[in-house]
Structures are given as structure tokens and as C-alpha cells.
């Protein structure tokens, strides 16, 4: 074992039917370092972590832990916990029906029997010290996603671990919470804990990490010290090719040259039962605009109200100048609106169905119950869009759940493009997918706009919005608080408007 290493994985292999998820991957984690594990979606990061924590059995290789010359045997998450590896997974893996405190202590060997009073007190203490706004006795399912994620982190941190794995823990946290988490990570680092950190946010990597290991297509690309690897190089290592300058995609594409003043959709005083204040909104032909604001500011709720995904309780919607009634998604679809939802896994894909069925679903629903597409049509459409969007799949009949996140997102995008919408709503289309696909999607957005489609683009990453949108609607506390366009469109102005400092 390498000097000071707390964990060493050698020659890890993992096969899934038809796929080599990991091939001969080495990974070394030293004491007291924060080690980023980077790679595109489907590069094998999550698989490597699941092998390490015993969720998947490995097909080859060895794992060594500090102070033991023999290979460690990790067959289940339980084993992993026992040898001092604690993990926060990408999806929240807690039980919603139990209390917050129980979730923090269940499945840990240190507890014999359940002393409710003590457990709640202990939990409250930890939650307080981490500044998590929750009580130990509360049922976890009634807490917000961000709090749930923080509870998962609190649990992992509280365990006396040698290795802490954080698999994209920040995707549902806001900036403050992320800062809190980073403080915590630095504390643990001082105590000598080795931390594996997986994220898609490059900023975060350069903020806290010491080393980076890059994976690509299930193979190890290399291990680098952070100072030696500038961003551009990191990205090109992840993609396996040199990156064309991303900041320039806006100027590359030409704007829509038709009548730009033609209003496609206009709503007045629209309001849904999801708790947003009534808002006005309009979008012109060939325009790309965006909703921005902190997490929970109501930006998703706004577009959901437009699409009729939440129950609309007031307001008027006008499509091409004519008033339309949209209370259900199907009505919106018939008006030519398409909506790519924020939560890909729960609202987007139909996991067990094939890529083909997933792509055709919306079009089929619009055509109606008694008019199924013919097999020839179905195949033609599917082939066309798989090629157009460069969806990587074994075949059109592969279940969509077997695809990587980015490719799943492309399928959902294909589903909506196939309905030829006038107005396309993309809610966080780039969340949790790799850099390459992110750029593809942004380019596609601009291309569609230049062909006359109106698009609303929502993203947590302000860079992306600045690159694609020509107008931004700013939200705070479930209300529209401002609109930015032209020269106002820059980081500072956005931040100021979000914070309310411009008044």
C-alpha cells in the first residue's frame, strides 16, 4: 500500500450484461485528503462507489484498507459500514416513514435497543451543530429534500469513519448549505478522514479538493494533484477530446430572423396551488428566456403552472393572441407547449419501457387512443431522433433505465421535439448530466430558437442561462421580482436582483 493511504482499490472490474462498467480501475485515497472522482455520466463513478460499498459484487480486483495487508471483504453496505466506510448516495437513501433521529441511528452497530429520549436528544444536538433546520422527532418524509440530504450527511459524518464517500451530495442543496458542507469536509479532513467527493460542479471541485481521479468509459484516465490540472484540461480529460470554447456558443448561432415581436404565449395573473404568487409572463417567437432564482423560489412552479402540471387556480393564458384554457397537461400539449420536467427519474422517464416507446409517448398521446402509430412510422421517427440527438443506446428497444442520465435526458428531449412544439419549456435539462451533453443541449436550444421555437430554459447554473437566454425572469420567495435583458444580463445584476439589492 502507498504511504499514508487509507484505501486502495486495485484492478477493479465490473460487468453488467452487455456492458463493461469498470475495467481494471485503480484508486487510492490518502489520509486527510479530499479526493474528487470525476467523469462523464456513465463513466463508472457511481459503479465504482457501489462496488466499494458492497452494493454491487465486483467481478475482479481487490480492495485494501489501512492497517490490513489482506484484501477487505465487502459484500454488503453493512460490511462497508463495519470497516469504516460511510456513504452519502446520490439519491436520498433514507426511510421516509421513520423519524429524522431514527434515520441517523438505524443500522448502526453502536446502538442496542432504542432509547427514544436519548436518541432524539443526540440527534437534535448534531442537527443543531450542523445548523440543519429539523427536529429529531419529526418524520423524515415531511422534511424538504434539502433537509433530507443534510440528514443523510449528518448520519454519515456522525459515524466514526475512516473513509467518507459523498456521491453528488450537493445537487439539491443551495449555496449556503453547500458552504456548510464544505466547512464540515475541511474539519473531517483535519481529523484525518479520507473523503471521496463526486460532483458535476467544477467550481466545487476546485474549491475543496486536493486530488482528482478521472474515469472515462469505465477506464482509469489518471490521478492528478489539483494544482497541476487546470479546468480546461480536466474537462478535456473527462471528454477525451479537446473542448471547443463553450462560452462562445451563443455568438456561433444566428438568432431567429422572422418576426420577433410576435407573442406566442402570454399569461396574466397565472397562479397554481403549488404556492406561487400570481405572475405575468410572455414569450415571443424564437425567443429563449429563463427563470432564475434560488432553489425553492418558485421558478419550477411557474412553468408547471403554464403547462398545467399543477392545479391552476387563477389567471388567463393566451396562445398566439387567443385565450386558451389549460388545466391539464394534455391541453397544453394540444396548444403546442412541451415541458421537460425537472425530476427526470420521477417525472420524465418511464423506466421499464424501451427507448422507442419513451420517445414516442407524447406524440402517441396527442394522436389519441384510437390512432396508434404504425410500426414503420414508429421506427422511422425513433431512428431519426436517435441519430439527430446522438443518443447512445444498444438499440431502440433497450429499456430506457439502462441508459446513462444524459442519454435518458436526450430521449425525453426527443419525445418533446417529436411533437413539434411552438413553445418548449426545459426545466433543469442539464442537471446531473455530463459536460459534453450539457453543451449539446445548449447548442440544440439555440438552434431550435433560430428555427422559430420559443424556449424557456431553467438552470441552476447561471453561466448556462447567460449563455443561452436573451431575457431572464428573476424570482424570489415565490414571486416574480424582476426581468433582465440586454446589457443587464450579467452575473452581478442577477445576483443583485435575486438578493433584492437593487431597490
Amino acid at each position: 500500500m502507498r504511504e499514508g493511504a487509507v484505501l486502495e482499490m486495485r484492478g477493479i472490474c465490473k460487468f453488467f450484461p452487455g456492458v463493461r462498467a469498470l475495467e481494471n480501475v485503480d484508486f487510492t485515497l490518502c489520509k486527510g485528503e479530499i479526493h474528487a472522482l470525476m467523469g462523464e455520466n456513465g463513466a463508472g463513478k457511481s459503479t465504482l462507489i457501489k462496488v466499494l460499498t458492497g452494493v454491487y459484487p465486483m467481478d475482479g480486483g481487490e480492495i485494501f484498507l489501512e492497517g490490513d495487508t489482506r484484501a477487505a471483504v465487502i459484500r454488503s453496505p453493512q460490511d462497508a459500514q463495519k470497516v469504516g466506510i460511510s456513504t452519502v448516495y446520490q439519491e436520498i437513501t433514507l426511510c421516509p416513514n421513520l423519524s429524522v433521529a431514527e434515520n441517523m441511528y438505524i443500522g448502526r452497530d453502536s446502538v442496542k435497543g432504542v432509547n427514544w429520549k436519548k436518541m432524539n436528544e443526540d440527534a437534535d444536538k448534531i442537527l443543531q451543530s450542523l445548523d440543519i433546520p429539523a427536529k429529531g422527532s419529526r418524520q423524515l418524509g415531511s422534511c424538504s429534500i434539502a433537509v433530507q440530504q443534510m440528514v443523510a450527511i449528518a448520519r454519515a459524518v456522525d459515524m466514526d469513519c475512516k473513509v467518507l464517500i459523498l456521491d453528488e451530495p450537493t445537487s439539491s442543496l443551495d449555496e449556503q448549505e453547500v458552504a456548510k458542507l464544505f466547512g464540515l469536509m475541511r474539519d473531517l479532513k483535519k481529523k484525518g478522514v479520507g473523503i471521496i467527493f463526486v460532483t458535476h460542479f467544477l467550481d466545487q471541485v476546485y474549491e475543496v479538493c486536493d486530488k482528482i481521479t478521472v474515469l472515462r468509459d469505465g477506464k482509469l484516465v489518471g490521478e492528478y494533484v489539483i494544482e497541476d490540472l487546470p479546468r480546461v484540461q480536466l474537462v478535456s480529460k473527462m471528454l477525451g477530446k479537446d473542448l471547443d470554447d463553450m462560452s462562445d456558443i451563443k455568438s456561433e448561432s444566428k438568432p431567429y430572423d422572422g418576426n420577433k415581436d410576435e407573442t406566442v404565449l402570454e399569461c396574466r395573473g397565472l397562479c397554481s396551488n403549488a404556492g406561487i404568487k400570481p405572475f405575468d409572463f410572455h414569450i415571443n417567437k424564437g425567443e429563449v428566456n429563463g427563470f432564475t432564482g434560488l432553489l425553492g423560489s418558485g421558478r419550477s412552479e411557474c412553468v408547471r403552472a403554464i403547462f398545467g402540471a399543477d392545479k391552476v387556480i387563477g389567471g388567463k393564458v393566451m396562445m398566439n393572441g387567443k385565450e386558451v384554457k389549460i388545466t391539464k397537461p394534455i391541453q397544453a400539449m394540444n396548444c403546442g407547449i412541451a415541458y421537460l420536467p425537472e425530476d427526470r427519474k420521477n417525472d420524465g422517464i418511464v423506466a421499464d419501457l424501451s427507448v422507442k416507446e419513451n420517445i414516442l409517448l407524447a406524440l402517441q398521446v396527442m394522436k389519441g387512443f384510437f390512432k396508434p402509430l404504425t410500426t414503420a412510422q414508429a421506427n422511422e421517427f425513433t431512428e431519426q431522433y436517435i441519430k439527430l440527438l446522438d443518443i447512445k443506446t444498444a438499440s431502440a428497444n433497450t429499456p430506457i433505465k439502462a441508459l446513462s442520465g444524459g442519454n435518458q435526458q436526450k430521449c425525453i428531449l426527443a419525445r418533446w421535439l417529436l411533437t413539434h412544439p411552438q413553445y418548449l419549456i426545459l426545466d433543469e435539462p442539464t442537471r446531473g448530466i455530463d459536460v459534453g451533453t450539457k453543451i449539446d443541449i445548449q447548442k440544440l436550444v439555440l438552434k431550435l430558437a433560430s428555427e422559430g421555437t420559443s424556449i424557456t430554459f431553467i438552470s441552476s447554473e447561471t453561466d448556462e442561462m447567460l449563455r443561452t437566454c436573451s431575457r431572464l425572469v428573476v424570482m424570489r420567495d415565490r414571486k416574480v421580482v424582476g426581468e433582465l435583458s440586454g446589457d443587464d444580463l450579467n452575473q452581478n445584476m442577477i445576483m443583485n436582483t435575486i438578493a433584492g439589492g437593487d431597490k
Partner: protein
Amino acid sequence: MNKKLTDKLRDMSDTNLLLTITLFVFVIMYLCAVIFLGEGFLKPQTFLNLFNNNASLIIISCGLSLVMITGGIDISVGGVMALVCMSCAVNLDLNGGNVFTSLLIALCIGLAFGIGQGLLIAYLDIQPFIVTLAGMFLARGLTTIVHTNPFNVENEQFVHLRETRITVPGLGTVNKHGKYIPAYIEIGVLVAVAVVIILFAVLRWTKTGRNFYAVGGNPQSALMLGINVKRTRFISYVICGLLAGIGGYVYFMHVGSGSPSHASGAEMNAIASSIIGGTMLSGGVGNIIGTLFGVLSLCTIKDIVSSIGLDDAWWTGITIALMLCIFLVIQSVIMVNKHSNKPSADSTDEKTAKKSAG
């Protein structure tokens, strides 16, 4: 609904909320029975008879609740009860056994079914419904194979045991002739009460008990939290099988005979009781005390129906179904209301409040 109540509702765990509803409904129902149907329901013996007649149902419902909390289902319990009755009857009267051998047989049958089904469900990942359906078929079929015709047990030792009555001090009534009649319970009731208490304690205060809830709530998460999901599932079926064996013996003590048609439909009654008691079939939510009151509610309804004079068998079916229906709808409406109060709303408020303060 005012805001305070909504907040309170939200802070309550699902399990406690459903338990409260069950208790509330039971009390209301019994009060109604007392007010509208007269004194009969005020007699302590009437109340105790609820236990006397349904001790076995309480026991198997507890087992079923446990399995349902863990996210499974066991529909073999009725069949196992019948098999236990018949086997014990044959052992006592035809094979010269005594009370202990018969009790041993009952426990072994229950355990065997529990272990067998548990293995198939937990370790081979076969759908619980199918496995326990097979279990039910097997038990019912074996009952006839053990002995075809129903008969009463005449073993003296057993008859003595079966007729033992435990007097409850201070709860007697004086009848028309001025004679004091003490209130009594059967032995089975003690067993049932013990089962309820033990199981309640296990579910509330032991690690294994909480594991049942975790596995029922989200098996994938439970696995990631370091719980041995397979073993937990397995244990739940073993306990349920064992309780079916015990329940079978208690039933046997109550009826004193073996018959292939014994305990028919018991599994559905047990499932209905568990649901009325606030257990959710989707898993992770439930309470043994609730189950106890679920059984009592179900049986009170039966009593009410028969005391109104609608003795026809079909009315019982219809009223129980009606009650089940009302119950399910109430539960569903309350749960939907509770969870549609966007859980994120308050915490983001907290967050933004902090932000503006900071």
C-alpha cells in the same frame, strides 16, 4: 381546518396519526352501540366476550401487521390455523397425544410454514402474495389429507383446559334473579394480550423492531443504511408463521374441534383488522395497539349487526365491507391532505427567513 391543527397533523408521524383515528373510531362506535342498542354493551362481559371470541384473530392479526409493516403480505394464516386445529385434534383423540404434544405440533406447523415461506420470499425474492397463496393452498389441502371429516375433541385433559375460565375480579354483574355472575376470560385472551404486549415492545424498543419499519418504508434505502434486509424480511414471516400456529391453537381451544372449514376467511379478516388498525399495505406504517383495536372494531360491528336483528349472514359481510370502505376512504383522504401540504413550503420559509436575517 385551521392552521394549528394542520401543523400538528404534519408533525405527527403517519403511524401515530392512523392509530389516533382508529382509537377515536372505536370509542365512538362503542359509545353509539351503548347509547342506541341498550345496556347489553355496557355489561363488562359483553366487552370481555369481544376478546374471548376473537383472541385468535387478535393473535394472527398481530402477525399479519408485522408482515405488512415490513412491506409484505401473508394470506396463508387462515389455512395454517385450520391445519393446526385438525392436526391437534387428530393428535389428541386418535393418536393418544396430550396437551403438550398438541401444543408442540401447533408451534411446529406454524414455524415450518413461517420458515418455508420466509426463505422463498426473502432469499429467493419471490412475490409474497404467490408464495403465501401456495402456502394457503398447501395448508388447506393438508388439512383434508390429515383428516377429512370434522369432529369434536374429547380428550379430558384438553377439555379441562379449554373450559378453564379466569374470573376477572370486580367486574361481575347481578342478573335478574339477583345472582352474582362473575365476568371471565378464557386462557386464549391471556395469550393474545401477551402477544400484543411483547410484539408492541419489540416493534417500539428493539433494533430489529425498527428494522421492520425501515425495510417496509424503503427496502433499497434500508439496505444502504446497513440493514440486513433479507434477514429482516425472513424474520417477519417466521414470526407471522409462529403466531399463526399459536393463533391456531387458541382458536382450537375456543372451538374444541377440528374441521377443514375452520378459520375460513380468517386471513381476510386479519388483513381487514390490520388496515382498520392503521397498518398500510404499502409498508412502513402501522402499530400493534392499532391492530388490537382494529380487531375489536371489526368485531363490535359484527355484534352490533347481530343485535340489531339483522342476523342474516349476508348483512355481516355487507356492513364489514362498508366499514372497511369508509375507513379506507378516511385514511386516504387524511393522508393525501397531510402530504399535499407541500412539505417544502415551511422549510424554505425557514431558510429564506434565515437568509434575510443573515
